[in-house]
């Protein structure tokens, strides 16, 4: 059996999201989870936790904005630093049981 590539896994993510087999309640919960005040969504990736999302912001990210109810498993902040002092890349992993483990199996990597 050929290994699962990142592209394959990503394709399955869009297909799974588009499929109405994934119920409306899950979709609404997921979309609500990923909206974080002050963070603009950049990209969505499948990952071992369910989905990982890259956000961008021009304000220093604050952990207070992340609610336990959002099902956040892990988050990392990457300052642009000398490239752009006022820009931050925030990568957040969300636990989504319906998607967990079906994507790339290397956590944040993609």
């Amino acid at each position, binding site marked *: 059996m050929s290994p699962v590539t990142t592209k394959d896994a990503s394709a399955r993510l869009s297909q799974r999201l588009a499929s109405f087999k994934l119920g409306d309640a899950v979709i*609404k919960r997921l*979309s609500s989870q990923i909206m974080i005040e002050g963070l603009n969504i950049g990209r969505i990736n499948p990952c071992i936790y369910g989905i990982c999302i890259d956000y961008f912001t021009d304000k220093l990210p604050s952990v207070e904005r992340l609610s336990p109810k959002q099902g956040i498993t892990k988050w990392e902040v990457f300052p642009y630093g000398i490239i752009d002092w006022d820009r931050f890349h925030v990568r957040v992993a969300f636990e989504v049981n319906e998607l967990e483990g079906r994507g790339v199996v290397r956590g944040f990597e993609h």
Partner: protein
Amino acid sequence: MVSSTEPTTIGEAHGPSGFLPERIVHVHPTRLCNLACLHCYSTSDPGQRGGLDPDDLTGALGVLRAEGYTVVSLSGGEPLVYKPLATIVDRAHELGFRVTMISNGLLVERSLPLLSRLDGIAISFDGLAERHDRMRGREGAFAAASAALERLASLGAPVGAAISLTRSGIAELPDLADHLAGLGARSLQIRPVARAGRARSLADSTFHEAADRARLYLVALALDHELPDVRVHCDLAPAEGLWEQRDAYVGLLGDGGETPSDERPLADLVNPLVVTDTGVLKPIAYDFDPRFDIAAVPTTSSDGLRRYKGDGPVPFRDLVGAALAGMRGRSDLVDWFDHCTRLSEARQPTAIALL
């Protein structure tokens, strides 16, 4: 009578206006179309007659260029059946506009010389072949649109796809996106079908509920990751995010500092602006309620627009202000321009101070 055809610009606008990266005039020169799509928001079809007088339109574009607009987006009807189209495109370029077009793709092959002069072209799609052809009322429409996109891409044209989806059409989006990317589409503009025009006669199940908008938004995000060479944009946005970015409406809702509203560029107050086939200037959308109409093309003048900016924007300003205030604290996805358009039909807006 048009008072000016020269771009006597009163100042290029800076910063966003109305959540758009450009200041856009959507021109519907005709409702004549070689198709009669089930979901057409302008109720265009082959039986329509009339259309904008090209002299009146180019005159109005001169005034609007001076009012800060930078892009002319041609729609319809099918713009490629509008006979004076080349004149409009050339004059708009002379005025300094970038010119884009949305087309159903059926007449692309015979229109290549004109299309090669455009700054952007979007071919419209409604799903994969069976769904697209059913919505368009013509067998082979999907194949023709696909061939048109591929042909334009092969010529190096800046071509993308404008995708309107019914609720059930969401399931086809990943395969459709793969198909369009394979043809050479550089961008995918995705939106839910609006409850407007001929689409009002479609079943309620056609339209997107909150969960469907969330699903469409998430699929678009995933596609943006999967298709790194294609710019994927969804017209839906998180409501709270719109509230956070309300500064995009500072031109309309702010006090303007020392600049009276009648001296501000119209593009800072109303974006996008729509020019209908009957020559009416409207805010935001073709079917925005007539109570908010701005001017008529044949009489568009700097003086007339100055009066509108001084007095006329109040109802529009109140509607947008109320709509923005309604975004605060919401956790769903919103098609902002359609939301405002539906509000224009439904209510008398209430003035709310926001900025």
